[in-house]
């Protein structure tokens, strides 16, 4: 190779690397599209609507899917389909899956922390919230194979029967996650519902909706069966009516409804006698947000009369 050509080759390599450096500066960031989580898939809302989520300073962070009543309807169908399979899993297995969710959340701590900060939490709060969310999942994972023992009873009866009562899941539960604490509030509402074998459709916080969809990605890879947990982002004002009126929903769990909203939910829930639970939790880090009685909120007690001594 002649000297001249060698120089030319070196020059061209330099040119390429310079161009790459320049491109690095100008690189288009790949932004995440936040969609819904229905039946184990991430569809866009069927309505095609979205809203712009902004930082407190007014900078646009993301276009968030604004779920419609039809998305909710699809989610209920998915939840109903998943219910029998999820409820039939052994308590031990459900515990394992909740623990798995905690493992996955631990592995993605940084992402959840920075996402909360992006949505307006301060750094320390965000760290504390993510840690508490992980611990909460582990807490309920532990209860999976214990709550039935604690809350069951053998009842004394006068006839020749062995009479016992035990809690069983209600079915499909609609969950309105709290506005504050986009991650911890969500996890604290979902975990006691699903650990007891219910499937659920969740409306995430309007202020911090991004954490819920990132959390959905985590469930998708944690052996949670498709449809057992479904997550929608959207406007509470628009969807509350449908969450509480749908005939195939067995209970509505919320924690921060105002009295007018609660009244609306209660009157729509009458149509099929849904159970309405408004938890009124003030401190999401305290034991009022983490106890086995919360599992019992979405359980039915079944009593069996078994003939003996005939």
């Amino acid at each position, binding site marked *: 190779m002649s000297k001249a050509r060698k120089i030319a080759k070196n020059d061209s390599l330099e040119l390429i690397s310079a161009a790459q450096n320049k491109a690095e500066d100008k690189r288009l960031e790949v932004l995440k599209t936040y969609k819904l989580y229905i039946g184990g898939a991430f569809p866009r809302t069927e309505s095609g609507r979205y809203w712009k989520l902004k930082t407190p300073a007014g900078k646009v962070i993301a276009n968030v899917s604004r779920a419609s009543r039809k998305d909710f309807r699809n989610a209920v169908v998915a939840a109903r389909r998943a219910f029998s399979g999820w409820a039939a899993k052994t308590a031990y297995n459900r515990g394992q899956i909740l623990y798995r969710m905690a493992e996955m959340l631990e592995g993605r701590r940084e992402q959840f922390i920075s996402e909360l900060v992006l949505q307006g939490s301060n750094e320390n709060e965000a760290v504390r919230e993510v840690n508490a969310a992980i611990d909460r999942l582990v807490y309920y994972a532990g209860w999976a194979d214990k709550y039935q023992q604690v809350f069951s009873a053998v009842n004394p009866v006068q006839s020749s029967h062995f009479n016992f009562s035990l809690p069983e899941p209600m079915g499909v539960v609609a969950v309105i996650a709290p506005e504050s604490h986009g991650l911890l509030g969500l996890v604290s509402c979902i975990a006691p519902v699903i650990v007891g074998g219910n499937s659920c459709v969740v409306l995430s916080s309007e202020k911090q909706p991004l954490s819920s969809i990132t959390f959905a990605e985590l469930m998708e890879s944690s052996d949670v069966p498709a449809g057992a947990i479904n997550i929608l982002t959207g406007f509470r004002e628009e969807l509350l009516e449908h969450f509480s*009126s749908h005939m*195939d929903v067995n209970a509505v769990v919320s924690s921060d409804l105002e009295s007018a909203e609660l009244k609306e939910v209660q009157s729509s829930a009458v149509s*099929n006698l849904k159970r309405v639970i408004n938890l009124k939790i003030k401190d999401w880090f305290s034991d009022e947000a983490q106890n086995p009685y919360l599992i019992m909120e979405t359980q039915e007690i079944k009593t069996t009369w078994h003939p003996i001594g005939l």
Partner: protein
Amino acid sequence: MAAATQTLPDFRYSPVVDQVGVADRIARVTARSIKKESKIEALKLALSMLDLTTLDAKDTAGKVRQLCYKARHLHDDLPDLPTVAAVCVYPNMVSVAKKALEGSTVKVASVATAFPTGMTSLDIKLEETRRVVSEGADEVDMVISRGRFFAGDYNYVFDEIAAVKEACGQAHLKVILETGELETYDNVRRASEIAMYAGADFIKTSTGKVKPAATLEVTLVMLEAIRDYYYQTGRMVGMKPAGGISNAKLAIQYLVLLKETLGEAWMTPQYFRFGASSLANDLLMQIVKQKTGIYQSIDYFSKD
């Protein structure tokens, strides 16, 4: 018989079907959305076109009576509902169904000719057909001999259908092609023509025992065969997709396809039926949803 006196086409040269064209047409039909009053009308029309079906080896007289009750009382909370078109049962349940439907407009349809395989001799098929008709079946659903069809013995398939049609007497004959076993649209088109020229009153996609059962694609191919046969002979033949149609949205898409291919004249239970069992409740749930605005649960609708 009219079919016998006219010149028959050579079934070896049935038109070939443009598969890509069919897929494209169906993609456009399924993107359509029918709403409000049109939706309610479509849902009611679909209900009136239902052949409520129970074809299980474990069927009992009790199960059939229950289904007949459902056929007469779809959902008594809604006063202005149509009844279904027919109840479709196995041959040994015809007399039970006939008795249970006495005094109603719901017809009794029976499968026959060694349903679902058709693997027996012609005399047994004819005997079975005559027997279900004498026991009161208004409609007979027969299966074609798919083995003979694949062997290229189109004349046998034709003659068999013609013989069963004769054995039906006054009863209507629906000919099941079992499209899931016919492999290609060209075969579906050919089998449709054989059935129609041999005297079928209806052509029907499937037994429900083979997958895939009815699809929009295969239904389009059959509807086009019906249209071309009508242009040739002036006789209107009915269409019955059966199997796998379990939700209202899909049923409405079938109606859109029907209207666009054959037009208004075919939009009656006399010329179009759905063979289904769980579709009835989904249609009812959608009708109640349209009236009340509240999404419904299967828990509040009778199973059969």
